[in-house]
């Protein structure tokens, strides 16, 4: 398996790796995947009252592509509003990192983690019913 330079770069120099306080009401946490499948992603977003993502952190158990996908996702969402962040599709990650077909699930996981983190924030703040488009389509699932 050969990796693209971008995957290698994210793997060697992960962006925004770490954790935030999951009890902070401003922090939404998404944990997706399962250890027995070989990948688990934790994505955390710090969201302000204007629904803008001020900060993002990730931790990932998984292959290089999974680590790179989550690192890239944190980089992309910072400064975006929730609505904008939800526009990010797994296929964008696939293209940016040149992931081969067997690694598409890594990008799906990153998209899922992003959605899970946002939904956790909404739930925590009683905003479940706020109008945001959470029904983005996942494309290219193997």
């Amino acid at each position: 398996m050969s990796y693209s330079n971008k995957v290698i770069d994210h793997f060697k120099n992960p962006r925004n790796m770490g954790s935030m306080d999951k009890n902070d009401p401003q922090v939404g946490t998404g944990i997706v995947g399962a250890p027995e499948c070989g990948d688990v992603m934790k994505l955390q977003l710090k969201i302000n009252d204007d629904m803008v993502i001020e900060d993002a952190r990730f931790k990932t158990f998984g292959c290089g592509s999974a680590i790179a996908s989550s690192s890239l996702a944190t980089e992309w969402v910072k400064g975006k509003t929730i609505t904008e962040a939800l526009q990010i599709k797994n296929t964008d990650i696939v293209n940016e990192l040149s992931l081969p077909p067997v690694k598409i699930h890594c990008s799906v996981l990153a998209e899922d983690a992003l959605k899970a983190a946002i939904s956790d924030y909404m739930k925590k703040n009683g905003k479940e019913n706020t109008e945001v488009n959470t029904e983005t389509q996942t494309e290219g699932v193997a």
Partner: protein
Amino acid sequence: MRFPIYMDYQATTPMDKRVLEAMMPYFMEKFGNAASRNHSYGWEAEDAVEQARELLAKAVGADGRELIFTSGATESNNIVLKGIAEMYASKGDHIITVKTEHPSILDTAAHLERLGKKVTYLPVQKNGIIDLDELRRAITDKTILISIMMVNNEIGVIQPMAEIGKIAREHGVLFHSDATQAVGKVPVDINAMNIDLLSFTAHKVYGPKGVGALYVRRKNPRVRCAPLVDGGGHERGMRSGTLNVPGIVGFGKAVELAVEEMDREKERLTRLRNKLHDIIMSQTSDVFPNGDMEQRLPGNLNLSFAFVEGESLLMEMSDVALSSGSACTSATLDPSHVLKALGVEDDLAHSSIRFGLGRFTTEEEVEYVGNKIVKAITRLREMSPLFEMAKEGVSLKDFEWTEH
């Protein structure tokens, strides 16, 4: 040190220079067909083949007439399973093998099942070794063959060959062993072990790729095996096709050298393997060896690193050639069938690395790899949500994961 450091000796080995030197004349000057009976080109090729055959037979305690040449152990294993199933069809239709075998046995057995044969896949104990009572219980009056590998390619575990052979003999069932990882590395004696058929290959013992052998017992009992490849009737009719003379010469030389140096090499590799184990274990926690540490190939170490995924670990170790039991390294999403058979949890199976040490592994390389693994584990665990959760006291078993 030469990079990447090669530590995957159970996958293949580099050729020993002495082997290449022995082979060289048989490419150009002595190029004859060993089956040519009418001239000296043929005779000298035949002499070389027969000399190698004697050397190889002697290395496993057999007679030269009992050994046939093949393209490798995969072919030898195919000949045994398919050939015995066909030849002994009137006697029975049941074969016993083990869950941790190589795909060249398991896939061939599955093929026979599709043709209506019955196969029992014995489980292994936690240490990778079969339970002899389970074997005894699996034998029926329809059993024609027991096929059990001598040394496992992933975890290096050595099965109790002599005991298995004794059971097979008592029940009048043929006993085959895939000894690919064993010949030239651990003692093999087909008579002491009551082995009737034995597969092995050159490239795991510093010989060339593309040549292997199959031992087929000639008396007590006389074993017969239907051929897969028909043709000129070479190799006692069991494997037609022009012999790979230079390959066979190299095979003979490689095994001769390996047997000569076995005791010394066993001691050296055991020491280096244990050193690698100690460097890693003394500086990390939650690392679990897979397979029995005593009944084991000297040059094999297989470890599972909790909270770290195997492929990312290999990526971190990119200047070392290693193998992982992680599914991510293959097209399927299932982790190693061998580790699963040991009862290793899927997450730990995904986190496993096989270290294969061999003839050209140095102490310096072992120290480098051991220390590098420690560093890699530390960095990847900092990145791992599982490690963080475990530290916080979250039970990873009870956590509600989202399967995908």
